[in-house]
């Protein structure tokens, strides 16, 4: 895979926007309009979902087993809300299904 040429500028800009967000809330005394409070509530939901779907299928023609393993991981996440367990089950299912098919 290509090495990211622009790593350091990107890293420093990520630091700036992250620290900036964290500091703004602690320094500024203001009340956000309710529309933007609700917008912020939905941001992680929408972004996480948007990060999942384009990388779900993969590029090795294993879409079927990846969907199945992700489905199982989704059930584990729903029942347990446990991050590490969800990832472990998802990967284990993926590897097992790969062996079978």
């Amino acid at each position, binding site marked *: 895979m290509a090495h990211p040429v622009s790593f350091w500028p990107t890293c420093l800009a990520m630091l700036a926007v992250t620290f900036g967000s964290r500091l703004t809330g602690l320094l500024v005394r203001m009340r956000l309009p309710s529309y933007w409070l609700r917008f912020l509530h939905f941001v992680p939901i929408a972004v996480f979902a948007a990060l999942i*779907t384009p990388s779900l299928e993969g590029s090795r023609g294993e879409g079927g087993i990846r969907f199945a393993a992700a489905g199982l991981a989704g059930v584990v996440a729903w029942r347990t809300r446990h991050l590490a367990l969800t990832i472990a089950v998802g990967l284990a299912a993926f590897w097992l299904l790969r062996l079978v098919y």
Partner: protein
Amino acid sequence: MMPLWLGVAPFALAYAVLARNAGLSIVETQALSLLVFAGSAQVSAVGLFSRGVGGLEIVLTTFLLNVRHVLYGMSLGRVVPMTRRERLIGAYLLTDEAYGVSVARGARSFPFVLGAEVSLFLVWNVTTLVGALVGGVIPDPERLGVDFVFPVAFLALLVPLLRLKVDVAVALVAGVAAWLLAKWLPGGVPVLGAGVSGALLGAWLTR
């Protein structure tokens, strides 16, 4: 705090392995954990790095993912009295987990907040280092399907957030939109587009 450390450690490990797989060096992998210290943004950044996405889109995605910290800061600043210097340190180390613990069962004093934050920072960074060292020696990680960790990790982050029907609706719309956009648009644009429009839709639906 213990369950939080146990939740953070495997995530840092997965992040570091993904980062090494994406072509980042050990120093670069560690730098993101030390300087940015935001799990989901770090994982999404290395995922985008590995797809050759430009820096601007990565920074915008980071901003979108971390702008929620404005809310945590406003809430924390109201319940915990802090000096200006304490606010600077507290802001640098602020995370979802530290905020949650401090507001939910905390002593609501700055030392408590700082203790929660620093312990999470240490666990996150030590585990990153372990993962970065291990991740470099995994033979042919692509054949192992390590890239599959990426969608599964975000699935594990997403599902606990889905409490109401409208949350599920927003996730479905954003997910389908990103999947369709990714067929025509490069890299980070689908994530940004679907992320912003999904959140706008959610805010509009709950008006």
